[in-house]
């Protein structure tokens, strides 16, 4: 089974109707049978009664035959190798993989070579996005110069150039004073700071502390390293009154600490990535370096707490945390392997497990995958609304298949989910009304409509 990425120079114009669809409306927390009309790249109308009396005459219409139609995924944590390590992933190959994964907008992490700590690099990403014209691409600006956690980067100038938030990617800011000043400074621009809470002095190991690490003889990172930093950041946020988003929450204690902070009314949000609700440290198994991630895979009790956090809304966002690594980075002894896994093409199918397991409803899931990230990062899309950009995904929620790294569009194949059986598949991805990806199965359907 395969699909096609559709490159076209022309923007969407005229009208296209998607009929016989099962619409997912995360903002209204509803799903229902209906239709959706796109005009000139924007959602013109949608609802259960639209075209209820039959396919509209004279409008190009696509029969979804009961497939789901939802706002496209907004992925706020994507690393590519461009610039610096283009052999691992280019912006183009990442955009293709994102299109195949139902992702209509993605935010690129700044930890490239050179790092995005200067307005010209933010402009570079915007320029490449205009050339590639698939998934929408946005960029983070670095929080500190060179991601070194010492000097504040030019947040104001980068924000003017289009940076949507500021982060040092997978580098935690060790100095509380620097973090404090960053939170204060960002207030001048109402900028969002995204921070990976991992106390660096406790994070020198290669997997999570615990029985598995002990048996494997690998140095471990205690889960404590995360909650300590969460609690520090919460205190700093309380003092500064800025906007803070904590990335890749992976432990039970962190979820608890963030939940408490939220109940105290702080402007704090957080995300997690599929490995942390779908895998535990057993996935490291026989020294599988594809399971080496930052933060490391945790114990089963932590995984269950992440699922609970997603259910009760403590965790706002699910991102792919896409981080390509080539063979040279992964086919080495575990301790020497580079951390990270790709995730653009597995984000939706693995996340759908939460729905199949009855842990989240589909609208709730899409709130975490699309609506909440778009809102928090101030991006268009992420919702079914008249006048909103027609950034959509068509998917088959039942379709069962097995993830096979040979089928990835990404340049590298380092997925922790390789060979995992999943249920749910992207059938088409639509950006600004334009179909940028179409599965072969859906292509046939659409052609016969």
């Amino acid at each position, binding site marked *: 089974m395969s699909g096609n990425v559709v490159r076209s120079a022309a923007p969407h114009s005229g009208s296209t109707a998607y009929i016989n669809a099962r619409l997912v409306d995360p903002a209204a927390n509803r799903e229902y049978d209906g239709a959706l009309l796109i005009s000139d790249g924007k959602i013109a109308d949608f609802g259960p009664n639209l075209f209820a009396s039959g396919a509209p005459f004279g409008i190009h219409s696509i029969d979804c035959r009961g497939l789901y139609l939802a706002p496209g995924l907004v992925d706020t944590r994507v690393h590519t190798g461009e610039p610096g390590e283009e052999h691992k992933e280019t912006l183009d190959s990442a955009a293709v993989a994102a299109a195949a994964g139902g992702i209509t907008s993605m935010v690129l992490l700044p930890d490239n070579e050179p790092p995005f700590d200067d307005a010209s690099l933010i402009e570079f990403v915007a320029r490449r996005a205009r050339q590639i014209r698939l998934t929408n691409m946005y960029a983070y600006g670095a929080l*500190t*110069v060179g991601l070194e956690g*010492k*000097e*504040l*980067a*030019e*947040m*104001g*100038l980068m924000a003017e150039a289009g940076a949507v938030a500021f982060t040092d990617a997978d580098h935690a800011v060790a100095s509380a004073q620097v973090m404090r*000043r960053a939170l*204060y*400074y*960002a*207030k*001048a621009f109402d900028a969002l700071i995204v921070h990976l809470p991992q106390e660096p002095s406790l994070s020198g190991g290669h997997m999570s502390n615990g029985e598995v690490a002990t048996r494997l003889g690998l140095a471990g990172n205690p889960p404590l390293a995360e909650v300590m930093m969460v609690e520090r950041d919460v205190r700093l946020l309380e*003092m*500064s009154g*800025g906007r803070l988003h904590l990335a890749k929450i992976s432990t039970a204690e962190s979820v608890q600490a963030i939940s408490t902070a939220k109940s105290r009314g702080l402007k704090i949000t957080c995300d997690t990535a599929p490995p942390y609700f779908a895998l535990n440290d057993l996935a490291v198994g026989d020294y599988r370096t594809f399971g080496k991630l930052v933060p490391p895979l945790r114990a089963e009790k932590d995984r269950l707490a992440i699922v609970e956090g997603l259910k009760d809304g403590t965790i706002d966002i699910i991102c792919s945390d896409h981080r390509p690594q080539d063979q040279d980075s992964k086919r080495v002894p575990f301790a020497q392997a580079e951390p990270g896994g790709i995730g653009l093409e597995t984000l939706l199918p693995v996340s759908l497990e939460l729905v199949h397991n009855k842990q989240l409803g589909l609208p709730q899931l899409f709130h975490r995958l699309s609506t909440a990230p778009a809102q928090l990062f101030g991006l268009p899309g992420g919702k079914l609304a008249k006048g909103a950009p027609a950034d959509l995904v068509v998917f088959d929620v039942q379709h069962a298949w097995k993830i096979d790294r040979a089928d990835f569009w990404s340049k590298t194949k380092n997925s922790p989910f390789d060979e995992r059986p999943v249920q749910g598949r992207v059938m088409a991805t639509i950006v600004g009304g334009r179909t940028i990806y179409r599965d072969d199965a859906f292509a046939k359907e659409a052609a016969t409509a």
Partner: protein
Amino acid sequence: MTRKRTGLPRLPHLLGIEGLSPETISGLLDLSENYIDQNRSLDKRRDLLAGRTVINLFFENSTRTRTSFEVAAKRLGADVINMDVATSSVRKGETLLDTAMTLNAMRPDAIVVRHHESGAVNLLSQKVNCTVINAGDGQHEHPTQALLDALTIRRRRGRLQGLLVAICGDIMHSRVARSNIHLLQIMGARVRVVGPPTLMPTDIERMGVEVHYGMKSGLKDVDIVMMLRLQTERMQGSFVPSISEYFRFFGLDHEKLKLAKPDALIMHPGPMNRGVEIDSEVADDLDRSVIHEQVEMGVAVRMACLEALIGGRRNAIGAVA
């Protein structure tokens, strides 16, 4: 010479603006006015302080403030000694209080002190029995700067009452900002502080000011724009990312100045960092910038302070009728 008693409280020292009454401030400003013409005439010298000794004790480098105090005291006929702290026994490990008591034993009438630590001038004043004038202590107060700013504004606008003043830049580390906040509010002006949140001291709004993190909202409709100096060591990533970013968002240029009232005055305590907190064109705009006038008022204000503090027989403040 008959000196009219104004019923002002005896001021043995001038340590700060905080706590002064509007009458005292007005009295000092009125007194200063007398000296402006004197300073502009050929014969600038009076002998009001003849026989009095003023020591300028500067623990922190300063050219303009020290010179201004020196000129002021000399024009009133006082003997002025500049203590060069770099070569004094302070460098040999003498404590502040030992230095103070040593100088006190030489029977000066006033010591003008600048020190890099907040509160140091106050501490020194407790150990001497002459008048102490604060010429700037750490990040606390710089009262004569606030008085000269007030005199400049009052002469241009005719009043302080009801004016809207924006103090912009590094509020956190500025004694000038703190003294001005006190003085302007005592005199009935409204004060905004404008700057990046990293340079805004905690709970500054409790001092009665409006806090703005952007020049757009901060400068809107103000009568006076008071810029502060940004120290070089604070520009490189610690408090603000860079000079270019600071200038872009917090530097005063004609574009941002458009938001203020059309006749808004531009002030700066000096020395200026052109292209950091202020654009050269704005700083040199003869219609708007009163930066050089501030320096001139500085001498007059310091003469008035010296007269008020040590000019009378009993070292009491008083205003000339």
